[in-house]
């Protein structure tokens, strides 16, 4: 690889991680702990944990386990029982929506879609979570766990023997859809939330926290 190519990859990653850092800032995390989480995600990207060998099921520490633990932490810190229930519903609907979208548009990723699935799954997760919970926290959890849930639907199909394949949850590390979905979902909630607040001339409702 030439120096230019390495520089291009680093700058792309820095811009992306910069956005991720702003997102983590919104999730009860201090600046330093947000940076620590990002560092852990980068380091964790190099390690996979094998959960089951046949059919193969692994979870990447940076791309799967850390976002999962972070979601659990954010979920526990939720303000009310109502917010938790809304979040769970959003997670379930997001997982199903991603599964449904992947089946309806079976040739996704070949340009036959309006937008690349990498963004579409995240945007649908963000929209569902925001409209149901109207909170950045719920959006993050629905974006990340929703995609993880979708992975589990697929794994169920592998377990039944319908398809011969393998599943590597969070396998792309910081570039995995689990993280991209979470980051985009919060950015979307932020964008929608602040815009709505501005349009309505004040708080957009009970979910307008943080």
């Amino acid at each position, binding site marked *: *690889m*030439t120096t*230019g*190519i390495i*520089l*291009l*990859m680093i*700058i*792309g990653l820095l*811009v992306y991680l910069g956005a991720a850092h702003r997102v983590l800032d919104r999730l009860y995390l201090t600046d330093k702990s947000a940076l620590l989480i990002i560092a852990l995600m980068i380091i964790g*990207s*190099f390690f996979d944990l094998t959960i089951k060998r046949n059919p193969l099921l692994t979870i*990447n520490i940076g*791309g799967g386990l850390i976002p999962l633990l972070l979601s659990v932490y954010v979920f526990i810190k939720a303000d009310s029982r109502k917010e938790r229930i809304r979040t769970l519903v959003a997670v379930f*609907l997001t997982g*199903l*929506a*991603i599964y*449904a*979208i*992947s*089946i*309806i*548009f*079976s*040739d*996704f*990723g*070949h*340009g*036959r*879609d309006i937008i*690349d*699935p*990498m963004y579409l*799954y995240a945007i649908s997760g963000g929209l*569902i979570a925001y*409209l*149901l919970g109207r909170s950045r926290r719920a959006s993050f959890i629905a974006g990340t766990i929703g995609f993880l849930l*979708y992975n589990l639907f*697929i794994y169920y*199909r592998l377990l039944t023997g*319908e*398809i*011969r*394949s*393998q*599943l*590597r949850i*969070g*396998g*792309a*590390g910081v*570039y*995995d*859809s689990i993280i991209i979905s979470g980051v985009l979902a919060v950015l979307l909630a932020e*964008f929608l939330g*602040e815009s709505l607040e*501005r349009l309505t001339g004040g708080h957009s*409702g009970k979910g307008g926290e943080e």
Partner: protein
Amino acid sequence: MKRIKVFFVLFCLLLYLPLYGQNNSEIIGHREEDICWVYDQEDNYIFAIALAVNVGDKYIDEDNIEYEIIEVGGNKAICKKKGKVDLLADIGPEFTLQIPLAKEGKKTVAIYHTHNDESYLPGPVNIDGVGEIHEVGDALKEALEKKGITVVKSENLHLPHDGAAYERSRGTVADLVQEEPDIIFDLHRDAIPRKDEYLKEINGKTISQIRLVVGRQNPNQKVNDQFARRLKALADEEYPGLIKGIFYGKGVYNQHVAPHSLLLEFGTHVTTKEQAIASAQLFAEPVSKLLFASKGGTGQKENAGIFSSIIWILGVTGIGVLIYLLINEGSLGGVGKRLKAFFRKELK
């Protein structure tokens, strides 16, 4: 707001309807019914491809004639002929066939298959995991290794062959990037039903041609475009007709993870595995020439494309942040204040 929520939830539930009565048979790759037939403005047939075609997509054919899609309706698209291109001169006078792609030292190529089940069989049929496309990958690996190139080939499975296959294969690309490859190839096969369009006689042997696909929706597009053109220019010198063309389509194809990434279509479902293997063996030659080119040895000529990619990334990010701040602050003055407050907080 409550009504919007109810409508939205109902809309989400509607999305799940197709899950009932869903046909479990997996398709074996790109499907014939997804083909787009492309004609020029005089209604002359130009090409067909099983990838989606969108307005703004470009195509450089076997003879280096460039076309741009100007209209798409169903499975038919209209393109505008832009004329013959000089593959190398158009990307910069400094590019010649003698400029190597990578620095001196070990040369590494990574190979993987997003659609593991693609085979040289008319579909749809059920393929149990690994299709014949893996054998084409093996042949390419062997041919490259004979030329002294290190090849990292992933046998990871990314099935089902649904809309999220590229999501799953991104993990494989991320793994392969850790091996610091100079080039990453994702091997596929096309699904146009006309085998004559893909067959060619080279050195007395019938081979199926290779189509290069560059994704237009990613920041590495410029670098990948240069890479594809240089590869085709070298192949045109060595084996004219081996490369069928370069398609610049809407899509990411995981080419954003690392530069020098291309999707390759080896033949179509009505050509044979043997013909695809024959083309893979020839294809190793221009790849090797590009990696081991004799002159320069620095690969620095690519920097113009790289810097334009970097400016592209930073520009899009900057514009996005500015739009977001403008919506939320309502004025440029407000944006300035918010940015000032941000930097005061971050830099203190």
